[in-house]
């Protein structure tokens, strides 16, 4: 048990280290930050001064250690565009992204899990086939196009909802949340269905049926509760994506979250900001995955005994 946890933690830290090296290297690939920050008329002395001020005169591995040391303290430097600490800007944008991502995730789980169970129960029947085609459909629609079409119908033609913008938990949320949900509903649905099919063919479900339990209990209590375990893994994946925001959807709906921020940061070549967002997201991914692994152990006793 403990050994398994330590191994997972070690793997997570390794992924984080490699991730930060990649992000750091990527930012350096883009060219000298001095060229971005100083006018072309800067003298060599001024460039030297600026390099010393930014720590760019040190060898690259030392720069990395400085970067990682500051990052560990939550300091990713200052944004080149906003002239404010990167961490501060990220935390300002986080609520809007969490609002959109959280709503979309909750909505897609509420829709997809019951429907996925239904599809598994109706396995290979016409209801199952129709739901399958719907799920494939949901995974095939480009989100930018879906967003534009929703705007066209509900904002431009019907004038029911705003075409974009942000207001805390009001009608602005509906169209972007629908757009984000379409993809994750499809994912949750297919996953729930296949997990349900696996549990419905196990011995304990057969036993529950043999002892005469009502089908309703067999499906929802014995079946779904066990089928939810693999679904949780996907939840973690969706959660991280929700956290980082959907770049496209936030751009289409002018939603002031992390996704839009990263797009703007890229357009302005604001590399400290992009670095901060990427490291933040990798760290988040490692953390969420670790949390899910720990959750797994508590939810599924089999893991506790077999992985020792």
């Amino acid at each position, binding site marked *: 048990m403990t050994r398994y946890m330590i191994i997972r933690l070690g*793997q997570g830290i*390794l*992924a984080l280290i*490699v*991730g930060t090296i*990649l992000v750091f290297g*990527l930012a350096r*690939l*883009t060219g000298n930050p001095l060229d971005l920050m100083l006018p072309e008329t800067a003298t060599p002395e001024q460039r030297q001064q600026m390099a010393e001020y930014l720590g760019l005169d040190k060898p690259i591995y030392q720069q990395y250690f400085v970067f990682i040391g500051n990052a560990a303290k939550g300091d990713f430097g200052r944004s080149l565009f906003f002239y404010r600490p990167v961490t501060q800007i990220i935390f300002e944008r986080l609520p809007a992204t969490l609002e959109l991502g959280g709503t979309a995730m909750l909505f897609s789980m509420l829709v997809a899990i019951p429907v996925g169970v239904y599809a598994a129960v109706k396995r290979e029947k016409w209801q199952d086939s129709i739901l*399958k*085609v719907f799920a*494939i*459909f949901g*995974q*095939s*629609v*480009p*989100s*930018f*196009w*879906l967003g*534009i*079409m929703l*705007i*066209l119908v509900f904002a*431009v033609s019907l004038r029911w909802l705003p075409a974009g913008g942000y207001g805390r938990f009001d009608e602005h949320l509906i169209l972007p949340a629908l757009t984000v949900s379409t993809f994750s509903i499809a994912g949750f649905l*297919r*996953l729930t269905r*296949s997990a349900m099919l696996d549990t419905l063919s196990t011995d304990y479900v057969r036993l529950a049926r043999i002892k005469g339990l009502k089908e309703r209990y067999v499906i929802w209590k014995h079946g779904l509760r066990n089928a939810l375990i693999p679904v949780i893994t996907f939840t973690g994946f969706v959660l*991280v*994506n929700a956290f*980082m925001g*959907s*770049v*496209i959807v936030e*751009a*289409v709906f002018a939603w002031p979250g992390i*996704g839009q921020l*990263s*797009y703007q940061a*890229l*357009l302005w*070549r604001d590399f400290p900001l*992009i670095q901060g*967002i*990427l490291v933040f*997201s*990798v760290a988040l*991914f*490692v953390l969420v*995955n670790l949390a899910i692994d720990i959750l797994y152990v508590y939810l599924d006793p089999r893991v506790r005994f077999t992985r020792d």
Partner: protein
Amino acid sequence: MKDLETMGGPRGDSDTKMEVSDALKTTRKKKGKRMGFGWRFYLPALILAAFVLVAIFADFIAPHNPVKNHLADSLTPPFWQEGAKAEYLLGTDQMGRDILSRLIYGARTSLIVAALGVFLTGIVGTILGVLAGYKGGWVDAVISRAIDVIQGFPLFLVALVLAIVLGASLFNIILIITIMFWVGYARQARAETLQIRESAYVELARIAGCRDFTIAVRHVIPNLLNSIIVIATLGVGSVILLESGLSFLGAGIPPPTPSWGSMCADGRSILTTAWWVSFLPGVAIMAVVLSGNLLGDWLRDKLDPKLRDL
């Protein structure tokens, strides 16, 4: 099972011979039925075939030059709307460029990206996956951690960062697709190689004196080809979605080359007056991605039911 029993029966007996050939016939028939070439195969296969043909023969099909402006005819509506012109079947955009022709040439862009992207990711992913699974040790450790790290990044954001850092071009888009998508193949190839490595036929090949390379090429790769084909077919959709998403944000295929994603973006600002400029390219993307996914789903059921979680 019954067929096997009859085939294992005593030889020489004419009745049994008859039974054997009958049994073989029914098995063959059953197999044909099991492949089930129904609408789930024909519909997506036809759409994809049309897409490929249109992309290849774009020069002969397209009625206009896709990048030529006809400013006098800008924002002509498609044929079912009032004010349509016969020479622009699907209307024009704000520059007066023929949308049908742009869609046709956009198909070429998407086909190049999808074909090269899927091909390269498949090859890189399979080789690295087989290497990791077969060699084990530090090779496996390095490749597996690389898979973990790449899957740990938010896919679209990293692709966008790379596209802007490296610069928008067809070559870079395919490079980015390869960097981001090889992991799916590698994971599957690694997992299956681990199983195949333990099998009796690999053991026998080794005893017979086969070198590792021969075993990998002759015995391992042919046995995981089914899964790779399924993942590749499903990958067509994700590759096209990624490319069109990047192009939509202006970080993909650089203008004036027509790309369905950037065509969608062109229509955003004129949604109230000329909705078709955004609408039509999206339909094209959806038709191709949906076909790829439907075909991949069908193939998965037929070739490899154990992959159904993908």
